[in-house]
């Protein structure tokens, strides 16, 4: 189980700069699909990486699917040397992404975000239009299934707006 609320609160209250992407972003926009992990794109500055490392240390991040006992050092140099980390923590599965296919990094995505309130904290979430673009670019069958649903969400939202105006 992934405690989305607790993870988002932890990142936000630690002043980590991040954007919700992937299945959790789809949920924010109204997707009915089950997602098991939280995907976030984080800003790759030294200050922000330091905040990420400090915030997650208490929840014991470890490489998801890796055999136990590897000498995985959760530290600023480790994050700086890598880019995308698929992690398991005591609060659940967290994908910490420096870049995403079809979207790039934090700075490239920032102008295509909306602010959402989840569990009493405000977080940035990729907007629906850009989420569709990155999911199309990812191109796996499961991503295209999500695109189909997201495009229906966009149609429904548009219809609702048309009826309201």
């Amino acid at each position, binding site marked *: *189980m*992934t*405690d*989305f*609320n607790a993870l988002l609160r932890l990142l936000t209250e630690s002043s980590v700069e991040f954007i919700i992407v992937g299945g*959790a972003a789809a*949920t*924010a926009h*109204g*997707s*009915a699909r*089950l*997602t*098991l992990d939280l995907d976030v794109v984080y800003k790759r500055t030294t200050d922000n990486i330091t905040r990420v490392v400090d915030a997650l240390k208490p929840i014991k991040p470890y490489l998801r699917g890796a055999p136990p006992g590897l000498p995985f050092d959760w530290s600023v140099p480790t994050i700086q040397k890598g880019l995308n980390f698929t992690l398991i923590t005591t609060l659940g599965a967290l994908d910490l992404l420096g*870049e*995403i*296919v*079809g*979207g*790039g*990094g934090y700075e*490239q995505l920032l102008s295509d975000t909306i602010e*959402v*309130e*989840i*569990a009493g904290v405000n977080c940035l*979430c990729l907007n*629906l*239009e850009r989420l*569709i*673009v*990155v999911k*199309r*670019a990812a191109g796996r*069958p499961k991503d*295209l*299934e999500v*695109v*189909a*649903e*997201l*495009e*229906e*969400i*966009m149609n*429904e*939202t548009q219809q*609702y707006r048309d009826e309201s105006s």
Partner: protein
Amino acid sequence: MSAMDNVEKVGPGEDPDPVIEAYKKNVDVTLIRENLRLTVDQRFQQLMKLQQFAEDLRHAGRKARER
């Protein structure tokens, strides 16, 4: 290779993909309408309940196989 090398230029709604159009037939629009009535926070509470339900089902399946 950077992820930026693969930036998709096609925007939503453009260039309909036959695969995506085929998948749309399986989308339950009634569930979408229900979700759109909820706040973002409520959508996440629902997601976590669904996760718990899926976990309970997996657990029940494991127990049934052990019998």
